[in-house]
């Protein structure tokens, strides 16, 4: 753990940019995958069956699970986008606000709550 006092680094390193953009893109893509039903695969826990992409629950085989597929979709998308962002010149990388790392999840919270509207019945 580097705890030395170093205030001379004005921008993120390529790795730092990768991690920042990954966190932001992962959060956004996860919500998009959830709301637009875009899992990379669908898992049927009753039969251990895996289908590529979105697949509805099969008759007499129990429910279908999309969460694992959303994680895979959003990880893949975020890895590609953050890899590209890490290749940007330092000047441009330095313009990415660090605060997005925590602002984006906070902004997405009401979207997620809204996406679960089905459950908030009385």
């Amino acid at each position: 753990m580097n705890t030395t006092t170093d205030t001379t680094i004005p921008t993120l390193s390529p790795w730092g940019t990768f991690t920042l953009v990954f966190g932001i893109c992962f959060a956004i893509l996860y919500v998009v995958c959830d709301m637009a039903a875009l899992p990379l695969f669908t898992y049927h826990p009753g039969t251990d069956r895996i289908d590529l992409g979105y697949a509805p629950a099969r008759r007499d085989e129990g429910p279908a699970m999309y969460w694992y597929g959303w994680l895979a979709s959003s990880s893949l998308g975020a890895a590609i986008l953050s890899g590209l962002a890490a290749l940007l010149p330092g000047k441009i990388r330095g313009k990415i606000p660090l605060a997005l790392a925590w602002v984006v999840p906070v902004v997405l919270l009401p979207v997620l709550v809204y996406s679960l509207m089905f459950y908030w019945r009385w």
Partner: protein
Amino acid sequence: MDFLFDYISVNTFWTILFIIHALLAVALLGALTHQAAAVLTPPRTGDTGGFVRRFRSVSAPSYTAVVCLLWVLAFIFGGWIYAKYRIYVRIPIEQEGFYKTLGAFELKEHLSSIGLGLLPFYWYLWKNAGNTTYASARKWLTIVLAAICWYSFLSGHIVNNVRGFGL
């Protein structure tokens, strides 16, 4: 894995996994809460003694690696038992009509996933703990992760109270 079922029942196996998941969550909650308290209300000069002062007087950077490790492990165990939850816990809760409980748990799954994606940057910010240009992002990201952890812990606890494994 099937050889285990010669010694313990299937229900016991999943209950053990759940308890490991819960214990990891408790440890994560403690570590993140200490770290969040340290960045949110650092001890003032001349502040002497007391539980609150000692609680927030921890070396915040030293918690980073263990927070990342515990989050990942708790997530893996949570993801493992989630498939069983979907069939043996969620369906009975649906049949009982406890929709708000299920919604709260769905929100937990979303938030803890988003938190997982933020861990690399969280680790990066704390690895450069001496860089004051990162201080604000480091502080607020830690607080957001601590809030996610608290929410996840409580909603998971509620679902377990409604219907845990091994029933």
